[in-house]
């Protein structure tokens, strides 16, 4: 009896439309480098979240002047800086700062960039011309250079660094969304939706935005790594986080002045930046492989 039923069930299962997201997830979890990337990110996110709860020392205040420039040991496994602060604790807490700034900067860029891309592509005309003109100006400056110019004038702070990095990434998202909108605006199903009386807001929300999601997610994952590097670069130049914030770029800057006597001050924050960026790059590459229709074939 069961032998005769099985093929029927299989046929029903085959007829049932499979969710592209579930398919994507299944492909992602078969992607070994993607899993490695995700694991690294989950590790950094976990220690960042746990940082305020589990802390052997206060990252900014706890100073042990007897341990000044102490090399790595059982007591201070990453060594101590010139003020006797535990570098392990500072690197750990630094993850919180870098990941937070990276994530918020990219989220802001995605929000503003998507909005501008939708407006430019959907409204068209002089609005589109104006937005494209603004993007062209922003794209004429290499990313970090524009961020440096913005922070140099706004004044050095972590918030201004976040704003500057976000501004440099907006054109990327506007371009992606605008190109999707332009390709879909005159498509038959959008015209059909319009003919059925759907308003602009509904068409954008139900038809255009979901189609922009795939390239947006790929770009977003890769952008977070870039944002973390940019935050660190601004910190290193003295334009980002200010002392005593345990920010990785700023820690390398502090370590640079002591680097003949205490190289560990620079090495460990650098390794942390490198690993977190590798994590996001691996994840971004895997997400691109999973979501790229040509690679799905």
């Amino acid at each position, binding site marked *: 009896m069961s032998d005769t039923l099985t093929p029927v069930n299989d046929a029903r299962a085959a007829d049932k439309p499979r969710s592209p997201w579930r398919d994507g997830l299944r492909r992602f979890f078969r992607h070994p480098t993607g899993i490695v990337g995700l694991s690294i990110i989950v590790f950094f996110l976990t220690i960042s979240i746990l940082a305020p709860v589990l802390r052997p020392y206060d990252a900014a205040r706890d100073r042990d002047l007897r341990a000044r420039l102490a090399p790595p040991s059982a007591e201070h496994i990453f060594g101590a800086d010139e003020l006797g602060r535990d570098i392990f604790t500072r690197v750990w807490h630094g993850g919180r700062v870098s990941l937070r700034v990276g994530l918020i900067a990219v989220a802001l860029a995605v929000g503003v960039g998507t909005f501008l891309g939708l407006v430019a592509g959907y409204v068209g005309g002089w609005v589109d011309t104006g937005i494209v003109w603004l993007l062209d100006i922003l794209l004429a400056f290499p990313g970090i250079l524009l961020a440096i110019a913005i922070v140099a*004038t706004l004044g050095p702070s972590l918030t201004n660094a976040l704003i500057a990095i976000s501004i440099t990434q907006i054109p990327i998202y506007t371009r992606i969304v605008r190109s999707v909108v332009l390709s879909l605006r005159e498509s038959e199903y959008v015209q059909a939706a319009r003919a059925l009386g759907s308003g602009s807001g509904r068409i954008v929300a139900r038809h255009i935005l979901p189609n922009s999601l795939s390239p947006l997610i790929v770009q977003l994952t890769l952008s977070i790594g870039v944002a973390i590097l940019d935050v660190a670069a601004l910190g290193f130049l003295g334009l980002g986080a200010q002392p005593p914030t345990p920010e990785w770029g700023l820690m390398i800057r502090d*370590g640079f002045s002591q680097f003949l006597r205490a190289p560990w001050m620079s090495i460990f924050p650098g390794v942390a930046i*490198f690993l977190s960026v590798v994590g996001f790059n691996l994840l971004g590459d895997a997400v691109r492989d999973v979501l790229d229709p040509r690679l799905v074939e």
Partner: protein
Amino acid sequence: MLIFAITRLVPGDPAIALLGQRSSEEARAQLRIELGLDQPVWLNFEAFAEEGPRGLVRAQYPIYMSRLVRGDLGRSIFSRIPVTESLRSRFPATIELTLFAMAFAVFVGVPAGVWAARHRGKIQDTAVMTLALSGVSFPVFWLAIILIYVFAVTLGWLPPSGRLSVATQLEPITGLYVLDAILRGNGAALVDALRHLVLPALALGTIPLAIIVRMTRSSMLEVLSQDYVRTARSKGVIERVVVNKHALRNALLPVVTVIGLSFGSLLSGAILTETVFSWPGIGRWVYDAISARDYPIIQGGVLFVAFIFVLVNLIVDLSYALIDPRIQYS
């Protein structure tokens, strides 16, 4: 305009920044007149009412733009040296470093990308791509510090900073020391200049190298799966010729685009690399200006780098026609 706007819309008075909080109001007012900061920012409607159209443009932005088109970027607030003069003296150092970094990235990156593509899925491919992934994930300033620590401090093979050793004598001609040493026939200076270039060029070239490797590999993979490559192989053409003659040239177009775009990351990366290596180029100069809040230098430096970036991209666009004769510009 963008750079002008962000430097002018910032709260705070440059006169106070320059003269300090304790300066007298008369001195500040005098300095504002000297710097032209007493004028309106965009257009002078007051003067327009009195003098007509000529008065309208007596404002900071029109004056700045009229000077800019004449190649005048203003003067350093502190040293009073014209920005263009400093740019001219520092540009050769930056361009020399950038060209060497780019040469390193291209001459290592393209063959490595081709090699990885030819060994797709094998250990060679995995190794190259892992290194490439690491390359795009390094903070450039940290890599620079590590290179100095390993090769200059620990091993003592290469100098840690500067463009020439103190003992080396070289009369500059172009400002590009390697070229100058060749032109002067000064072998000792040539070796010294090259030794000073190795570490900064390695640090600066790593990110473009990684990007070029990745792009060359993916472009080559696409071309190697084309019908004409299969035809060439089935005709019995040897693999080396198939790769180098048939595939590589067609795979180069996106690589050239990436090389052009990488120039931007090189120029901005130069700020970080030059800072670590005390390299007396535009990057280090802008960094010092940032620390001193010397706005004309920041403005001029950023504008100049953006100009070079746009210029390089234009050259890249034009070079497409050379690489691919099917592309023509009318």
